[in-house]
């Protein structure tokens, strides 16, 4: 027992004895236990790192009212189930599993521990004690697309894509919609690297695109390799997941940062209040889950101002890229005038918007 806890216990017992009450007051002081499962090392400076930053900000917010535990580098195979179950057995009240590959293991363990709350990032399976959460990365991507459309001189924008899942497709679409609106001459070039984190492949993709004349690179992968490549060759790039300024001070236009802290604080509070309910949560700029911490000083002031205007518009709902009329890239009308795609539609998106000269890999 830590000294501070002991003092509290002592104070509680003394107070209880004086008031003729028993110990439940002390029992309420017991910290809420929160578990986190990461797919990568916390030092990856990308996905897992950002989740751990979220954990740390929850710790800073709640102090000794919570006790957090994390397990890093958990393989998305047979081991994940044991790690999640061990966290549940260790008495954690809520467990966050932060990678898509943990979906089925989390579902299995959630069934066995109905009193423990589970939240799985980026998945699509729900149950009474299992919720999901995901960020509207496309909101940041829209702003990035606008800035890219203004900064390109060659009118060629590159996009390093990971896997053809709906999240990546809709973000590619968002960038295209921004380009079509603010610089119709700009063309989007997409390279699929089939990985979330592989500095070698990401750098190769960046260099190949720059060889073809691309001068602004966006990425849907986690390493800073593309940023570094762009810095070396005098191109621009947009950071992903964490703030990548220091990997390319000249190349870095902006970063679209995932802030998981507000979500974790919010949900842990809900467990404390007893108001936690399983749901599929989607959070974006309005909730502080997607943040653009700053803009490069080399961006003209009017462009930065317009970008900030877009952010404000996204927050109040007046800017929404997936508003009809929208056609797919084969000319078929997908979203008629006057309608908007819901997030449920976006979660299943499997078509490119008009203007993308490519096919989705099958």
């Amino acid at each position, binding site marked *: 027992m830590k000294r501070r806890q002991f003092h509290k216990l002592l104070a509680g017992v003394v107070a209880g004895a004086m008031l003729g009450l028993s110990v439940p007051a002390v029992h309420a002081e017991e910290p809420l236990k929160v578990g986190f499962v990461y797919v990568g090392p916390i030092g990856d400076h990308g996905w897992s790192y950002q989740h751990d930053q979220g954990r740390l900000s929850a710790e800073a917010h709640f102090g000794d009212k919570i006790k957090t535990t994390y397990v890093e580098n958990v393989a998305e195979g047979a081991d994940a189930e044991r790690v999640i179950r061990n966290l549940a057995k260790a008495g954690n009240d809520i467990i966050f599993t932060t990678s898509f590959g943990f979906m089925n293991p989390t579902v299995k363990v959630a069934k066995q521990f109905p009193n423990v709350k589970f939240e799985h990032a980026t998945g699509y399976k729900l149950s009474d004690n299992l919720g999901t959460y995901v960020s509207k990365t496309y909101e940041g991507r829209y702003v990035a697309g606008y800035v890219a459309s203004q900064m390109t001189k060659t009118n060629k924008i590159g996009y390093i894509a990971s*896997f*053809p899942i709906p999240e990546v497709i809709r973000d590619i679409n968002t960038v295209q919609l921004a380009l079509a609106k603010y610089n119709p001459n700009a063309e989007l070039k997409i390279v699929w690297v089939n990985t979330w984190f592989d500095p070698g492949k990401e750098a190769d993709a960046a260099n190949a695109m720059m060889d073809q004349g691309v001068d602004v690179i966006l990425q849907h992968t986690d390493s800073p390799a593309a940023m570094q490549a762009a810095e070396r060759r005098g191109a621009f790039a947009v950071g992903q997941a964490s703030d990548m300024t220091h990997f390319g001070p000249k190349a870095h236009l902006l970063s679209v940062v995932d802030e998981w802290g507000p979500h974790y604080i919010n949900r842990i509070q809900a467990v404390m209040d007893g108001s936690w309910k399983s749901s599929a949560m989607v959070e974006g700029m309005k909730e502080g889950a997607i943040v653009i911490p700053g803009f490069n000083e080399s961006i003209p002031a009017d462009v930065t101002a317009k970008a900030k205007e877009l952010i404000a518009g996204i927050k109040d709902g007046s800017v929404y890229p997936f508003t009809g009329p929208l056609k797919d890239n084969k000319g078929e009308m997908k979203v008629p005038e006057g309608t908007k795609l819901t997030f449920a539609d976006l979660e299943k998106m499997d078509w490119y918007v008009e203007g993308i000269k490519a096919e989705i890999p099958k």
Partner: protein
Amino acid sequence: MIKLEPRGERSRLMSWLSPILAALLTMLTGLVLFTLLGVDPWQALTTILYKPIADTYGLAELAVKATPILLCAIGLSVVFKAQIWNIGAEGQLLMGGLFGSYMALQFLDNDSGYVLPMVLLAGVAGGLFWAGIAAILKVQFNTNEILTTIMMNYIALNILLWAVHGPLKDPEGFNFPESAMFSQSAILPVLIDDTRVHFGLALALLAVVAIWVLMSRSFVGFQIRVLGLDRSAARLSGFREKRLIYFALLLSGGLAGLAGVGEVAGPIGQLIPSISPGYGYAAIIVAFLGRLHPLGIVLATLLMALLYMGGEMAQIELGLPLALTSLFQGLLLFYLLACDVLIGFRLRLTTSKPATAPAAAVATDTAVIEARG
């Protein structure tokens, strides 16, 4: 200048004590390390080595974790006895998982009893196929199997990734790289209720016994041992070397394939991009730690599986970093090799001139190789 000098006759007792000595030295180093890290060393050690198996659930999980390592390692003990260095158990495991998954996905709406045997056979076939390529290259073209099997690990991984991102992807899975969940008929039955211990464990133990009998009682086993000890003696005795190489490599490949299909049709229940966190590589350490003997391999497998689980437990209970697991595994191998060298050789301080230094280095190399054999 330090020189290694052969001790002459090698002590059989000491060669068996060496792994135990290595394990003790690892623990001792661990104690020092934890003390330096400011963690109560006794608590840390019990968290890593005892806590994971403190209850039946933990023991069952140990068995689940040990199953694929045991299958790979017991197969490797045969090829290594023949002095064939199959480093490709990982790739053979992945191919087993891939072939088995392909078969399981053909029977999604079928609950007949023949589905599971077909899935298992497909997995074994995957391992056989992958090891078979290495065997053909070695026998027909005299290719170095260490290089080919390592390289084929990467090819296997990329074929698996291609399949799970492409043709075997769940059509209803929103393009996420996972196959559909297998039907219950393709899943290995659970042996003990409320645990994940599956029929694969029974198969692994069966394989251990079968290989024990094969290596100690059968003529083929004898031939393999002779082949490993002295290739020309085996040739002079009229043993068919090529056939033995095929046999040993295919046997270890088939068992690694079984390990792979046992994971996808066991605790995972579907094909995913990462079906093995490196079981095929861990099995190499296990095979040597267990002195290539079935009983030793069983014990070494349990220790290796325990270290994996202890690493998770140390993170959950003590907040220690994951690097600890790799550190412990590395220490174990390091001490084992060191003990083996010192059991076979004695250190002698000499005043020799630098010119002889390369010779000493060569001596060290041979010492390690001999100690491994």
